[in-house]
């Protein structure tokens, strides 16, 4: 059976006239970018209002990766939540582990041995390098410099190997414990790290040569996505984005935790607050991380990595099987969790993306009453409309890449 379609053919000249009139009338177009757009690095959706190619307004729409991590946290013990922190900023799981462990330790009012602090610094800085490498690689790729991505991923591979060596897993590390670490680092880790520190600066220089004075890259990044100091502070932006705008604030310097006061390093700052500045800040931060890592392995203290408090950490398995008291501690720690005092604490650390904070409200007992995750990506993304306004549609990609967010952390 055939059906007959009737259609109206508009004569093309008349159509062109109509389009032109619409444009002259200044009709704006609303388009949808994401949540499956490759440059949104995850599942961010941005609704853009365009006037021709120019962005008039941008509304970020988050929540596509919401898994209810905070609800989950209220229903398990403090130790059980550690694997969930891997999945917040999944480009820097080691750093999240470290921050979470310090937050709970602050609630418990305890301290960890110096060796543990140094190893945690190593973890946090490795995670920073890894996260910045991905940020830079994909930044380059998004604006058309494919090679950088391959170079940075080669180095990230080595960091994953080290993560596997130290924690047993490449991606979902879960390396810290409340009051210490899962285990001390294996003897082969330090030589591995030394080798990496020797080779890695060459890669930074290579990337530097490929991008920093690359005309195409400069033209695509300079003056794009300006964020003034005042706006950045007002919106609560943190991390490289805040420092790119020239605000000298790094938690490692402002509130040293994990023995960061022992380390010598500089905090790089941007001068104008555009995408290019944020790129430069991340570049320099990687060089500073190399300095910190070098100092950490040179001055690594000896001694235990775990706090001796048996009511917090699991005792040795052998002791559990042979001694009564250890068996009791083990049983209580596993079934009821650590007995935390009632109270509320906020601990934040300088993570690769910015200030990652945990706000824990405890009513006593083994599970938190409320665990709020203050994620840097969530807060930083609020600056997107301000940064995007007035730029071209194609600059959106640059701005998103220079913000360097992770949706796993943003949506929790």
């Amino acid at each position, binding site marked *: 059976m055939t059906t007959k379609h009737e259609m109206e053919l508009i004569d093309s000249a008349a159509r062109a006239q109509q389009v032109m009139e619409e444009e002259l009338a200044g009709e704006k177009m609303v388009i949808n970018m994401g949540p499956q757009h490759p440059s949104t690095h995850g599942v961010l959706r941005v609704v853009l209002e365009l006037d021709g190619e120019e962005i008039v307004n941008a509304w970020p729409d988050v929540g596509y990766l919401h898994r209810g991590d905070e609800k989950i946290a209220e*229903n398990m013990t403090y130790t059980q939540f550690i694997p969930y922190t891997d999945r917040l900023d999944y480009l820097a799981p080691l750093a999240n582990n470290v921050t979470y462990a310090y937050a709970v330790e602050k609630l418990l009012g305890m301290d960890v041995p110096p060796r543990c602090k140094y190893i945690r610094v190593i973890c946090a800085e490795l995670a920073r390098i890894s996260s910045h490498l991905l940020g830079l690689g994909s930044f380059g790729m998004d604006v058309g410099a494919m090679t950088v991505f391959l170079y940075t991923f080669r180095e990230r591979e080595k960091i994953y190997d080290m993560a596997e060596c130290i924690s047993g897993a490449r991606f979902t590390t879960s390396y810290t414990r409340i009051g210490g670490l899962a285990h001390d680092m294996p003897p082969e880790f330090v030589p591995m790290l030394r080798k990496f520190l020797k080779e890695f600066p060459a890669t930074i220089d290579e990337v530097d040569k490929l991008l920093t004075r690359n005309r195409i890259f400069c033209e695509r990044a300079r003056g794009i996505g300006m964020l003034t100091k005042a706006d950045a502070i007002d919106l609560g932006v943190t991390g490289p984005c805040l420092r790119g705008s020239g605000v000298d604030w790094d938690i490692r310097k402002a509130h040293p935790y994990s023995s960061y006061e022992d380390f010598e390093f500089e905090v790089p700052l941007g001068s104008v607050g555009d995408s290019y500045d944020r790129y430069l800040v991340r570049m320099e931060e990687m060089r500073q991380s190399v300095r910190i890592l070098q100092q950490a392995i040179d001055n690594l203290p000896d001694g235990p990595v775990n706090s001796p408090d048996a009511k917090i950490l699991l005792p040795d398995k052998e002791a559990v099987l042979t001694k009564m008291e250890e068996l009791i501690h083990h049983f209580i720690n596993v079934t009821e969790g650590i007995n935390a005092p009632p109270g509320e604490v906020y601990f934040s650390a300088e993570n690769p993306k910015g200030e990652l904070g945990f*706000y824990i409200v405890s009513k006593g007992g083994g599970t938190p*009453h*409320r665990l*709020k995750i203050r994620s840097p990506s969530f807060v930083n993304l609020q600056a997107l409309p301000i940064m995007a306004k007035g730029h071209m549609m194609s600059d959106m990609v640059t701005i998103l890449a220079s913000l360097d967010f992770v949706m796993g952390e943003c949506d*929790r």
Partner: protein
Amino acid sequence: MTLQAAIDRLKVRLGEAVSGPVEFRGETTLTVSPGKIVAACEFFKKECGFDMLTDLSGVDNYGEDPRYEVDYLLYSLAQRCHVRLKVRVSEEDMVVDSVTSVWRGADWHEREAFDMFGIRFRGHPNLKRILMWEGYPHHPLRKDFPLAGIPAELPESAVNADTVRSAPMLGGPFVASDGTRSSIRREPRQYDTLAERQEKLAHPTKKESV
């Protein structure tokens, strides 16, 4: 101005509306009455240099009166110190004044607190859900919302699903998975469905059978 001096001046200015400070682990918390939170925030920002709103978080203290609270964590870049302001919100009148006029950054934080707890912020420019979708009927971080979830309709635009199903409990991430009866019994979260949660909240003292 030191933090203590700022607190003293705020107490003179707002009188009874401010109580505290409470110190715990080196953190200072002040409780402010709901009507005065904008005044307190403006005071801290404009006169004491607390230029950043680091965090804003809702908390559900189920069984207490007032039931909810909102915690504001303020930070001063110049003095490098935090102060926490706490507002208690009763269940009958779940409205707090919005501080978006003080810090624009409060926008998404307040939307999140609204989304998760149902606390409404008076004067917020765009108080919509942020993590859950428009039209979702519940507020998931309330204590009477079960971990397993409550079935809900998805908006029409969503593909491939008519409803959101409860999370599967057996074999799920919170459940010991060897499947034997005894291990399921050992796992109290296995029972955390809506009926169970209501039962638990109604009889908080009842010990769970292990």
